[in-house]
């Protein structure tokens, strides 16, 4: 059952991403101007890189084992358990770093009220648009059951039934978080060309900023 849900979840993200790419993503402009603006500083890039790297390992080890139908064990389990603490720390850092920028604003309603995925025209957006903010808050929200379901199982609190419940919570919330993260990953790479460079250089072109984060651009310009 869980294996089917994993496959369905990942395929659903891929399907939505594919449709979006064909209908919207491919029509979006590629910005070539040399003028750039700094969007992420070193700290933000480090947090993001840590999050991405640890998530990738946890995703591969966790869902790899689940898809194989066997309990996670051996070096895979060790890798999973080793990457979990930095991921947790990175999640906390993420919450502290971007929570302020991810507050919903009145202008976010414009995007949320329409079909946020289908819009190609410029929107009013601060540093992050409403979709990004939603991904952020969903990630923060899901982080709690993901972390606690794992950590609480290490305390002598839950019996066998409780352990099963905690494991199930861990499995299903990680699946939801994975869907969220994969969606985020798509929209910040293929879905919106010119965005992924923030992960490496921390900069985007000024045209990109004017188009996708005009309010933040105004603020930065000011």
């Amino acid at each position: 059952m869980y294996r089917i849900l994993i496959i369905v979840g990942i395929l659903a993200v891929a399907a939505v991403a594919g449709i979006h790419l064909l209908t919207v993503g491919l029509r979006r402009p590629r910005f070539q101007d040399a003028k750039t603006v700094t969007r992420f500083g070193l700290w933000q890039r480090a947090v993001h890189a840590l999050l991405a790297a640890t998530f990738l390992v946890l995703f591969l080890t966790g869902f790899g084992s689940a898809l194989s139908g066997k309990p996670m064990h051996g070096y895979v389990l060790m890798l999973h358990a080793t990457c979990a603490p930095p991921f947790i720390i990175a999640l906390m850092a993420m919450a502290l770093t971007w929570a302020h920028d991810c507050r919903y604003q009145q202008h976010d309603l414009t995007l949320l009220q329409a079909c946020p995925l289908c819009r190609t025209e410029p929107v009013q957006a601060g540093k992050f648009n409403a979709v990004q903010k939603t991904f952020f808050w969903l990630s923060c929200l899901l982080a709690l059951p993901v972390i606690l379901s794992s950590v609480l199982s290490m305390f002598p609190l839950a019996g066998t039934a409780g352990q099963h419940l905690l494991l199930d919570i861990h499995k299903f919330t990680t699946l939801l978080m994975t869907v969220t993260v994969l969606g985020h990953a798509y929209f910040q790479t293929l879905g919106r060309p010119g965005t992924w460079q923030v992960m490496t250089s921390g900069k985007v072109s000024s045209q990109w900023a004017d188009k996708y984060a005009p309010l933040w651009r105004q603020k930065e310009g000011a």
Partner: protein
Amino acid sequence: MHTTSHSCSAAGLSFQGIAAKVAVAVCAAATFALAQPNPDHPHGSRAPAVHRIPLVSYQKTAVKGDANVPFSVEYTCMQCHGVHKMRSGWHFNAIPAQKQAYRVEPSGTKQYARFTLALTLGDQTAEVSYTAQEQSLKAAVKGLVAAVQAGQGPWQQVVATGDGEKVTVTAKEPGVEFKLVGKADIQAPTSAAATQAAASGKKPNLDVKAVSDARPYPPSGRPGEPWVLADRITGTQLPLSYRPWKGVYSPRDIKMTNWRFAQRFGRQFPGGGVGTMDAEKETEPDQRWELSGKLEIHCQACHSGSFKENMSHWALNVDRGNFKWAAVASSPFGVVQGNVLALPEMALPEELDPATNKDVPRVYYNKTQFVSNPNLSTEEVYFHATNRMPAERCYFCHGSHDVAEDAAPIWKHDRDVHMTSGLSCADCHRNGLDHNMVRGYEGESDDAALATLTCRGCHYGEGISKAMQGRLGAPYPAHKGLPTVHLEKIACTGCHSGPMPAAQAQLVQTARAHALGVHEKHGADPVLPLISSPAFLKGHDGKIAPHYVMYPAFWARVEGDKVTPINPAEVAAAGKEFLPFAKPKQKLQDVPMPTSEQIAKTMAAMNEGRKAEAPEVVYIAGGKLYRLDEKKALVGVVHEAAKPVSWPMGHDVRPVGRALGAGGCSDCHTTTAAIFFSTVPTLSPVKIEEPRQVPMYELQGADGTYWSLFAQSFVFRPMLKTVALACSGIIALVLLAFVVKAVAALCGKFAPSAPRKD
């Protein structure tokens, strides 16, 4: 009176004989009448059945207090109980029932084909053959079907049908399985017939197809404790069993007759099985069935509720070959004198006179135990028989104790927690009339009432029968903080059973291997075999569980990959110039064991003149196979046949507070934890090399580096918990703070969409 007596004697029957037979007949009829309904069928009463019954001899005559013949347990108990139904029970079914081949001999000189069906029962194969004069498959199948149906062997409850192309064999009783392998074996008969066949050009190409996958007895199931043939002089500790368990050999592999097996090991099994099989057919010189009689099922070995039932005397008499006297000797009714093994080898029963030969077994009954019953014109004795056997009866054959130098004495050990809670062995290890006992491991049975008689079944019920949860008052395990993967990887016994593990598995003696509880340990070496426990190995289900472990030591012939053990007697004879020997009346534990030099010389002698293609004689011990190099020195190599043999340890179950894990993760997840890092020494009767300490992870086939790294990661576990909880708290606070802000904004106004001024 005189005339009558005389006439009866003339007819070959004495008055006493007739009277005895009449008495038994009357008594049997009365017993049956009184016992209605048949006690083998539950009559609903929970009150114990009182067994004051007459004893019946092997000649089916009544045995009185002044008799000097043994009583037959089977005939005595069979007055009411269907003993024949019990023969397929777990304690008696290691060896299948008597094998029998059916053959229709050819007549005339025509070409014929012999068709054979091999009936496979565990590692035993019996054949049903039919010889057809014509090459007609239909005729052959018909003949085979008839042969199977007429069979008296283990397949007698089989209905066979043949449609001309295949034979289908099914058991009459549900649940009885049978494996039938069919083959058509075209014989090359007499030379005349072969010539005729060749001339006719008729070469039948027939194939009797098989058929069903079944056997009449329960499968051998999870490996259990094998019998161990220990012999100091040749440095042998060879695991034997008629059950095809991994790592054990069949007694037939060393040409051990059923009689010798029963004499050697019958001390600690309750008769039946090998003690009654093939008695008439065994013709090897190493058997004395005519004198010893059969070693019948000894009901009271298990069912006696009396501590007067002395199984040590049973063991003594089995060791002496007094098979049919052993039950009397163990009973409170009589004493046995004599020793079949001391009788001349070629002696026949009719030649032996107990009056002149003290070694001829003779019974002296305790007359005070016999009560005259005028109603039945016979005498009766009281059997304290119970179907709620005390654990002490089981302990005679099933038990162990530590013999390590620093081992705590028995009185310091605690009993199994189930025993202290008031259960007895038979509360879980139950059986019906067929005596197919519940062994109590998972997967043994699909019947919820039986499948729940396991650790998990009683305590959890989950996956088997939730309704049976808490059976026998079993508490539901909390297992708080124990990740569920442990329940998938470790058997319940892994944490809960056996002695608390130490850094090294300890030497133990088991009841069956070392004749515990037997006076003077007849026929058993108090030292050999060298068995260690607890060893944490993967069991038949792949889960880690505590086991007993023994590195086999034996002489063998090796031909390619095939290793065939050699009977120690053969080795002793071949190496009598080199091997140590027992002095007259020397105690077994004082007999020296051979040195590596003696082993090498014996091996050289046994391989002398060996042709290149002939099997090589080797010695296997301590985890290695030893052979001679060019310099006639022993060289050891790792070999599959030298791997340790193991069997699971189900008891003694420790209470929750003394289970592994009760002290936290570090009970098992440290770099010194017994479950992975304690060791088992490669003990050998002969010191050829220093024993190697084999870590548990190696025996489990696991990666030691991984378990070491994993254990070390637990150093950081508290830090991980702290960090994770702290991070969760901070994330929660962030969420809470912004939710509050959002709610405040929603209640008042949205935050300004323009860039903030601050």
